[in-house]
């Protein structure tokens, strides 16, 4: 279970997040919705450690953790960015194995074996040696998901997963997200402004409109 307690984030004088409290039971899917600029992405960035919070705490299964300074070897948060941010100079396989080999000190063979299993599960078999630019948008997104999963996170976060995809592919992402929930019991957080999509996949929605009024 992930708990956010009194999370506050300010940029200068502007309070973006004001005492956010939120609980997500393990294995569930939470959608964070709200208009542009309300602080959805900021919340995700705080949770993934890309922004430091001004006050509050994050707890995973009752244990407090600091997303900005992950210390133990098991990762709590994995992120799939809006524009994926795959590494263009590395092949699909290298994109997935880089962090496990460098950060988790996994040996290369084990990392590759794991990467190939992930690619198979995400319907990307045969793409191992291609570079990101040679893939379609949907395929790039799935590589980004595989890359995040290779770090064995407890929670997988998506920033606007449908914004860069054509409507036909929205269903595919929804399927992947639901499959991860079903087969891996993966806790997932989806930041989106796409309400239909949120309703389709999420167990619970959290709306962040409140903060924009306080500016």
């Amino acid at each position, binding site marked *: 279970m992930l708990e956010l307690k009194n999370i506050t984030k300010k940029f200068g004088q502007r309070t973006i997040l004001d005492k956010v409290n939120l609980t997500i039971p393990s294995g569930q899917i939470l959608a964070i919705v709200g208009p542009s600029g309300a602080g959805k992405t900021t919340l995700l960035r705080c949770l993934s450690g890309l922004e430091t919070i001004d006050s509050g705490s994050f707890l995973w299964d009752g244990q407090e953790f600091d997303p900005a300074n992950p210390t133990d070897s098991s990762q709590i948060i994995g992120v799939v960015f809006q524009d994926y941010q795959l590494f*263009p100079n590395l092949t699909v396989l290298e994109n997935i194995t*880089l*962090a496990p080999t460098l*950060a988790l000190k996994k040996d290369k063979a084990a990392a590759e074996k794991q990467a190939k299993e992930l690619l198979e599960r995400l319907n990307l078999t045969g793409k191992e040696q291609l*570079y990101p630019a040679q893939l379609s948008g949907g395929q790039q997104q799935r590589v980004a998901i595989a890359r995040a999963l290779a770090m064995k996170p407890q929670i997988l976060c998506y920033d606007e997963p449908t914004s860069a995809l054509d409507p036909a592919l929205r269903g595919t992402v929804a399927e992947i997200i639901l499959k991860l929930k079903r087969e891996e019991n993966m806790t997932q957080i989806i930041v989106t402004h796409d309400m239909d999509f949120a309703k389709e996949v999420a167990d619970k929605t959290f709306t962040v409109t409140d903060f924009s009024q306080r500016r």
Partner: protein
Amino acid sequence: MNYINAILPSLLQGAQMTLSLFCWTLIISIPLGIIISLGLISHIKPLQLFLKFYVWIMRGTPLLLQLIFVFYGLPIIGVIFQRYDAALFAFILNYAAYFAEIFRGGFQAIPEGQYESARVLRLTKMQTLKHIVIPQVVKIVIPSIGNEVINLVKDTSLVYVIGLGDLLRAGNVATARDVTLVPLVLVGIIYLAMTGIASYLLKKIENSYSKWK
């Protein structure tokens, strides 16, 4: 033909000087340029201002002036260089400024998101630079570096003005002595050969980076 054979050794000797200047300038100014570019994008304000000033001076004044300044000017205030050292010193300072600007642009072209995604994947700063940022920067800067490399081959001829015996000087001496165009034409051909080889090698490097975008 006999004449060509007769003057070729002196031309090649000059070419050797040209090549030596060319190689040493590149070997030192490229790494120096990378270091300076990191200073230019650092958040240490005084360092950044100082480096900007240096780049402004080096790019804003003629290389010829810088050469004359180092060799004929500095001795007046007691700093004396040998001819070759003076040339190398001026070339390195000048080219490092150009390379620094090129690398600065390269580093700034890497989206912030690349650093962020590396960070959530828990790569260290050094790992991020080595595996992700530098390969991308190199790909971006190769065409501009290539231009400078070709320019450098030709700019080495400026050492003529401080009396170094480079390729151009060897050709000019022969032309003045024998009253014939042949040495100058040969000098041109040798420069073309050198820039041709440099272009070819640069193309090869560029191609090796073309498999990804």
